[in-house]
């Protein structure tokens, strides 16, 4: 037994030694990506990039705040070249922590409308997702639906399904209401929604759609791509999606609330040129088409077709709010949710 132990110890020591001396990827022809977007959803774009440029992509995925924290503690020696997130607030949080560098790129500025990028060029939106209503056409007349605010009306008491406020999509939605109407109105709204919930918030966006389909509630709130994914999902999901209709709510005086998935170049990027090339590639017509067809996001680049399935559920008229304005309210949103008792 002990012989085994010591042989094993040697082997383990060798592995550890090998692991700790292998240098982080710095060589030319590589780019290191820290991604909050999960691997299966970003890999097709990254593979296309490697194919187009010959630059090898190294990838780590993790939740947004965790990966930002990792960049921070790694400091100036961090191997990260590009940070990708699925939420604007986290991009701005990374920017505020000094983790992203400004880059000047005519390609990016031309491809991305100004409301979806940082003025100083530290972060750029790469895809859009809209937060919409799902309703049961047997129990809800779409003429009754209008704005997000109207969903807090007492007539919807016990009829609304929405997920936990720990979720960034809800946080950004509330932040946009604060940006439009101020914190007091937003808190009133959050309390109204809590009062209208048909059950305590639980599950993901698909669960809200299933909730509407099964009759647990009449209206659910969720992001657009989940619905399309369900239409292409399991038998049960397809059946549920078929029972539900989509409504694009408006912000007062604006359009539907949108969030971005996006990215920026790391402040300490060892391969900044490749990093910029990657971001530029991700806004190319080719990569934007993948965004549209794999993830069912709305392309951020004008002129790239929205996926037909997404087109079929209605036309998006996005809110014109500068997304950088959402970030200022991020911390406030969670506090409002806590006070409103939105779990």
């Amino acid at each position: 037994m002990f012989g085994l132990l010591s042989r094993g110890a040697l082997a383990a020591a060798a592995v550890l030694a090998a692991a700790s001396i292998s240098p982080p990827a710095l060589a030319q022809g590589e780019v290191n990506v820290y991604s909050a977007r999960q691997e299966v959803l970003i890999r097709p774009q990254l593979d296309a990039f490697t194919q187009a440029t010959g630059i090898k992509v190294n990838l780590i995925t993790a939740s947004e705040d965790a990966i930002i924290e990792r960049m921070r503690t790694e400091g100036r020696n961090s191997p990260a070249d590009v940070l990708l997130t699925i939420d604007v607030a986290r991009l701005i949080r990374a920017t505020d922590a000094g983790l992203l560098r400004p880059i000047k790129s005519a390609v990016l500025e031309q491809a991305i409308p100004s409301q979806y990028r940082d003025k100083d060029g530290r972060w750029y939106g790469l895809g859009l997702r809209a937060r919409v209503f799902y309703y049961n056409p047997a129990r809800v007349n779409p003429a009754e639906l209008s704005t997000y605010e109207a969903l807090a009306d007492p007539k919807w008491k016990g009829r609304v399904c929405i997920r936990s406020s720990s979720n960034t999509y809800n946080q950004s939605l509330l932040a946009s209401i604060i940006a439009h109407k101020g914190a007091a109105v937003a808190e009133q709204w959050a309390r109204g929604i809590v009062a209208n919930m048909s059950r305590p918030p639980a599950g993901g966006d698909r669960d809200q759609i299933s909730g509407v389909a099964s009759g647990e509630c009449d209206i659910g709130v969720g992001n657009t791509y989940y619905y399309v994914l369900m239409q292409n999902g399991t038998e049960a999901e397809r059946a549920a999606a078929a029972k539900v209709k989509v409504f694009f709510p408006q912000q007062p005086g604006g359009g539907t609330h949108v969030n971005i998935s996006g990215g920026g170049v790391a402040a300490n990027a060892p391969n900044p040129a490749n990093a910029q090339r990657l971001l530029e590639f991700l806004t190319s017509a080719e990569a934007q088409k993948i965004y549209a067809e794999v993830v069912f996001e709305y392309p951020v680049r004008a002129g790239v077709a929205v996926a037909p399935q997404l087109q079929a559920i209605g036309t998006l008229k996005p809110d014109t709010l500068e997304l950088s304005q959402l970030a200022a309210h991020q911390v406030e949103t969670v506090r409002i949710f806590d006070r409103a008792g939105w779990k």
Partner: protein
Amino acid sequence: MTTLAETGLPITRRRPRIDGWTVAALGIAAATTLPVLVVAASVLFPAGDAWAHLASTVLGDYVLNTVWLVLGVAALTFTIGVATAWLVTMCTFPGRRVLEWALILPLAMPAYAVAYTYAEVLDYAGSVQSWLRASFGWGRADYWFPEVRSVGGAVLMLGLVLYPYVYMLARAAFLSQSVCLLEISRTLGSGPWRTFLRVGLPMARPAIVTGIVLALMETVGDYGVVQHFSVSTFSTGIFRTWYGLGNLTAATQLAAALLAVVFLLSALERFARGGAAYHHTSTRYRPLPAFALRGPKRFAAITACGLPLLLGFLVPAGLLTLWAVQTAPRVLNERFWGYVLNSVVVAGLAAFLAVAVALVLAFAARLRPGAVTTWASRVSTLGYAVPGAVVAVGVMIPFGWFDNTLDSWMRDHVGISTGLLLSGTLAAMLFAYVVRFLAISFNAVESGMTKITPNMDRAARSLGAGPWSALRRIHTPLLRGSLLTAAVLVFVDTMKELPATLILRPFNFDTLAIRTFEIASDERLAEAASYALSIVIAGLLPVILLSAAIARSRPGQS
């Protein structure tokens, strides 16, 4: 045999001195406590007004739900674990031979996977309630159905996958009880119930308490189940404070408060053991007498043992299989086998390291009993209850600091850049696993160690063997079962480990748990099933081996 009174004879001389063993114990304690200390040190930093906000809004919920969770899981794991262990060890009934090992199987199920599957089937839109509504024409208000996404649901999920800790340790304890005691109890006129309550249970107390404490530590550290069920606990609160409020300091302070709870739990365990010693003085071992159950009792025993297995393993594994079959062709490719290899290699290394460290720690505590080694082992095992992501932060911060400080110094004085030596390596990840899972390996090794009578050590000493030689030639062979148990438990837990792996892993390094989580968090449960199922399968083999080893571990039997 009775419990051995303290003879007052130390195993070796008790002259206080600094020697290799004490230093080793202190070194292990220092290293494994570092991440925990980084977390605890957060209380020294101001967290703004976050606490005032938390206290006035959600903190009450966090505390209350955590308390309910702890009490519920304690009760459930105790009831299931002890009852099944006693039944399969002391009674005969049909199916006992299979149940003996099968009862451990839920251990291989990641708690989050069980939660996903039950929520999918049992919530309002799930197949069970849909079927009820369709069959009876019920509407929403026409019937009552227990809400699976609730504190009670979380207790059930965690209890079902964590009871094997209690089962295993209790069973090992029942098996190692000398037949004399039980026979004496019978000859004095006690029936099976009385024997259980008055002799079997008290003798197994330390093992049972250890099992429950392990289950509870895992419960308070759990994030997957409570997050999926939207139950606000300390653990979800830590992440909400970190991610949502963007306040890592306040988040680690919450984690520090959780640490205090864990410290309390482990103190409780020591207290439960009391001063008594539980090693055996008798070497008389014969096959245990079995109470042959008949009639309704037989049926009751089968139900009592079969139900936890059914709910904790067969049903969720069956559902996962059902879903996996639909998606397997898409999932089983070259990459998939890469994930399997990564998971198994990392889990194997982590198991080996955690057991080796635990062995040194436990032996040091045995050789040099006293405050130093006791405290060293106590603080070394705190990491288990800290949510993985918090341990990961505790590892990241000092490692990053070390790397960058060394790099700066080397640039200034030698003119070369050493870059990141530790951060983002496999070594950092393995270190985090040892910090997190040392409690499991240490408890298993230590409870095995307490059953070796000090006379063994004394005999070895008197025959001229040094401590190192005794550890190698006496204790390690005697502890084979315990070491194997420890290794398997750490292996299985590492296979399932998610948050620390996510944050700390090197580039392009994915495991089964990571794939399961990513896909499940994208709400594609059917596809996640194949990955989750392979975690279960990879965990099963060692669990079955372990089960066999425990059955063989009864002293005096070959």
